[in-house]
């Protein structure tokens, strides 16, 4: 009974309350309209080259664009120590530091004229003259000068050390400038011009880093004036530099969620650090003192988010741009969002290949067997089944040093490869195996497991090559590259892995020349060695192109290995965000973040 009474009372009371309060509809009469869809897909400035598009005369727009490229937390303003270096950290710090050059979407090198210019003034010895723009300043108003270049050189100089080269003063990821440019940047420390003189010709001279962190901050923290700092670096006075080096190594790495003092983190690029919430996001704000083309949007917010949450976050507009690992599932989900998002697909500068083992005694030292194997590997089928779902434009790669999307690809292929392994030729392979009396040859394909895509590749190779008389064994192993692992022991015939292209011209020498550290299969060919030597000591692009053709042809004739395909890349952005462009380089989708803006 009591319950009944109470429930009656509640009903009556609620009705009374509604009547009493005499509420009126809230808000304006017109209901808020659903947000308009921005037509025209990826509108915005049209890019004519693989470099940055010309946005014309733009002013920074208010608002924030939220982006996530992965789960790893922001580490440090200085992302150039071995501890702090990561592509995720660089995705953020690269927005803050101007450099003399940048990579276009196909890995081509473009000069950054905002910061200044450079020209080669002598071939022998290789001497480059850099000129910093007159109006180029750090965000705190200090001029960007030669002193900053001296700092960049000092941090990459193993000759500044405490005792031996194992213990460099500056703990940096790149270390060779001290030897390749013994004297460092020459010029008035307070001036805007400097020259660097290389000891030996360096075809990759353009991409050496000559501008990074603010010298005046490092000097001050080291208890020196900027002039004293520069003098100490040039004199090789390690003792005097210790404190400054310690600051460079550790001083910028702070407790998660706490940024260093604002005075200590001036920037030379279009964005500066403004806030950091540990575990959540880092926000960059446009540098109002930037001397070049201003950032298109005032704030960039980098969220630390694992791939699994990215698509829905994009759908819910919690994020505007996402750069997940490319998987077919993610792509399907993104496609399901229809016109609300733009999807960027394309190749990356990372490429997959099958490399033979040339260690003495291995069956694959026999060129005929390598040929038979190359004949039965279904490259086109692998690309069709595994890569095309992610990148419809994907194609079989026929070179090692040049990618299909680069301009000199067709030319180089024409000179180096006649298409003999384009079609799977089971009969041909069978014939060779019979001639060589090698039917039933066991081929262990090793790779670093678990890797679903590679397992599938091996399965497809197996189904094709087993028909020709090989016995393909999936030798995937988590410890493939570990010390004492399959690779080191040489317990494989074919290794399946990928190299990440760095944009360097000479990096391949480490892979294909005799005795080099990345020549895992111990391949050796005097002609190839000589061609690399010619390439690496020349500064002439024509020589580079010619030698590349020569090397590629030799590597095909000799069957060093079989290139397969460039890894696909994937990213997506809200339909209202303009100027988001795919890039093949490791910089990832944020490479032109300073150009992103929200459509009106």
């Amino acid at each position, binding site marked *: 009974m009591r319950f009944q009474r109470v429930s009656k009372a509640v009903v009556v009371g609620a009705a009374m309350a509604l009547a009493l309060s005499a*509420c009126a509809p809230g808000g304006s009469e017109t209901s808020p309209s659903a947000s308009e869809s921005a037509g025209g897909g990826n509108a915005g400035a049209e890019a004519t080259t693989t470099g940055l598009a010309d946005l014309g005369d733009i002013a920074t727009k208010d608002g924030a664009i939220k982006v996530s490229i992965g789960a790893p937390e922001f580490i440090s303003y200085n992302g150039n120590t071995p501890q702090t270096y990561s592509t995720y950290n660089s995705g953020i710090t690269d927005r803050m530091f101007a450099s003399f050059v940048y990579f276009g979407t196909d890995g081509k090198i473009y000069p950054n004229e905002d910061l200044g210019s450079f020209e080669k003034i002598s071939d022998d010895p290789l001497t480059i003259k850099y000129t910093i723009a007159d109006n180029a300043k750090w965000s705190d108003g200090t001029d960007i000068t030669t002193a900053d270049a001296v700092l960049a050189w000092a941090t990459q100089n193993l000759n500044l050390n405490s005792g031996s080269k194992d213990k460099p003063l500056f703990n940096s990821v790149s270390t060779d400038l001290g030897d390749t440019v013994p004297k460092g940047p020459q010029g008035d420390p307070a001036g805007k011009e400097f020259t660097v003189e290389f000891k030996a010709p360096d075809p990759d001279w353009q991409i050496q880093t000559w501008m990074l962190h603010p010298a005046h901050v490092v000097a001050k923290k080291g208890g020196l004036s900027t002039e004293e700092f520069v003098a100490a670096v040039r004199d090789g006075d390690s003792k005097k530099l210790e404190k400054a080096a310690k600051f460079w190594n550790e001083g910028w790495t702070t407790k998660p969620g706490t940024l260093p003092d604002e005075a200590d983190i001036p920037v030379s690029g279009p964005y500066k650090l403004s806030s950091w919430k540990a575990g959540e996001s880092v926000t960059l704000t446009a540098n109002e003192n930037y001397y070049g083309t201003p950032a298109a949007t005032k704030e960039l917010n980098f969220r630390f988010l694992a791939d699994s949450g990215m698509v*829905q976050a994009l759908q819910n507009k919690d994020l505007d741009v996402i750069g997940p690992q490319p998987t077919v599932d993610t792509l399907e989900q993104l496609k399901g969002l229809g016109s609300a998002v733009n999807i960027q697909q394309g190749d990356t500068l990372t490429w997959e290949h099958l490399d033979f083992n040339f260690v003495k005694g291995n069956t694959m030292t026999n060129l005929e067997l390598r040929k038979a194997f190359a004949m039965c590997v279904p490259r086109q089928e692998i690309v069709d089944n595994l890569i095309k779902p992610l990148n419809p434009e994907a194609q079989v790669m026929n070179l090692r040093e040049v990618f299909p999307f680069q301009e000199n690809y067709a030319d180089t292929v024409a000179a180096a490869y006649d298409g003999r392994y384009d079609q799977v030729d089971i009969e041909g392979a069978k014939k060779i195996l019979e001639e060589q009396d090698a039917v039933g040859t066991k081929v262990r394909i090793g790779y670093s497991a678990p890797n679903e895509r590679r397992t599938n590749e091996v399965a497809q190779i197996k189904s094709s090559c087993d028909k020709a008389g090989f016995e393909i064994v999936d030798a995937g192993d*988590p410890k493939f590259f570990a010390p004492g692992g399959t690779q080191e022991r040489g317990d494989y015939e074919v290794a399946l892995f990928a190299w990440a292209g760095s944009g360097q011209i000479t990096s391949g020498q480490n892979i294909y020349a005799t005795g080099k550290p990345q020549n895992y299969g111990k391949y050796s060919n005097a002609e190839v060695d000589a061609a690399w030597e010619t390439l690496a000591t020349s500064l002439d692009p024509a020589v580079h192109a010619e030698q590349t053709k020569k090397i590629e042809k030799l590597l095909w004739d000799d069957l060093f290995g079989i290139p397969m395909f460039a890894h696909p890349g994937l990213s997506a952005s809200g339909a209202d965000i303009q100027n988001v462009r795919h890039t093949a380089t490791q910089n990832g989708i944020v490479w032109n973040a300073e150009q992103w803006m929200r459509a009106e």
Partner: protein
Amino acid sequence: MLKFILKRLGSAAGVLLAASLLLYILVINSGDPLGDLRESNAENREYLMQQRTEYMNLEQPWYLRYLTWLTGVSKCFVGACDLGRNINGIEVTDLLANAASSTLRLVLLATVIAAILGIAIGVLTAVRQYSGLDYLVTFLTFLFFSLPVFWAAVLLKEYMAIGYNNWLENPQISLGTSILIGVVAGLVLQMLLAGSLKRRGITFLATAIFVPLLLQYSVWLNFYRFPQMGPAVIIVLTVLLALSATAMSVGLKEKRVLYPALITAVLVLGMYYATFWLLAEPNGWLLLGGAILAVVIPGLIGKLMGGRLSKAAMGVSVTVGLVGAGLTVLDHIFRAWPGFLDLKGRPIATIGSSTANLEGGFWDHFLDNATQLLLPTIVLAIISLASYSRYTRSSMLEVQQQDYIRTARSKGLSERTVIFRHAFRNALIPIATIAAFDFAGLIGGAVVTETVFGWKGMGDLFNTGLHAVDPAPVMAFFLVTGTAAVLFNLLADIVYAILDPRIRV
């Protein structure tokens, strides 16, 4: 008791030490800390490997590495913890502080909600064993219990975040939908209130008619974008509460209870106007102070006016006071909602614990935190709620079979007294153990929930550390979760003693 606790603590320390050694060895052997560098084609790969080897002491034998770590940890006893640095050179102590606070925020509310609701549902289903309600709840709890977290989270995001936000852009409820909701609500309510067939019918009809009307009215009011309550609704609700609470406890005839309750209701209205500007932009302490006053003042009124019924009077008045204060706060939240929507157009986010760089005042941040917490809390709560309700139900059923319950009933005690005073307290004993373990487990981080919702808590600390074969963060994780497990175990024992006089020594 003290000796018992000390003995337990001593053995726990031993277990922790042994476990830490085991875990350390397992972690450093779980993979190749240089793995990412081995596949790199950086020119100075060797140098980088050498740097990392030196930095992480990879060349030292395992016992030296462990001892280094242990020495650092032992400094905790002198207040200078050194948990080492992670692979990126960040102090693990700092990482741990962030991770722990984020996890606590995430799991604390969820655990409390799950425990309270779960126990309530368990008691209700035990009392109404084999009723329609029991079957329905049993079905639902098994459903929730077997939900994969990942999947549940994705569904919640799809409907409660993306779907809700889309709907909120122009909130409409069609007539058909309103009727459907009304029918479902009617069915559920008649099941809950139970009674004779006639009463069930009336409950169902009343709800099925009232709810659709209410929904249409709310749409007309544009309530979902511009919610409003106002003092009129607050006073009506509090007075109604005062009346019904009095009726339920001692009956409306007892003026000693009724008057303090009504006075409190009037006071609530007074306070509504008095604090209006204060609460428009409050802070946490102000709200806490308000809550304390909302308990103390009605309590005093009840005590002074209640006479021999002072206990009941205090209970009723405090309830009215608290609910009234709660409604007042809710009114301010309603007022802040439209402004909040201007700042954050899509209120329910799918990721993170707060919106970066959100402007606005106290209520905007309050609402932001609440909306960010909503989904992960529901996911976590719904899943542990299932186990709480099942355990409570079976424990209650078991207790109800006991002789002393029959004795209590035959003594003529009211059913409420039998259930709450005699059965429920004893049924809680096994639940205490479960709750303690559950909470200790949750501190360890809800790895999947954290990952899906983009929170960097304890689970993430562990996961990232393990993937990088980086022992320091993993061990820090172990230190906290291991200690929590041990402490909560101990706590469960103490709670046991409080709940069950038989094991008090």
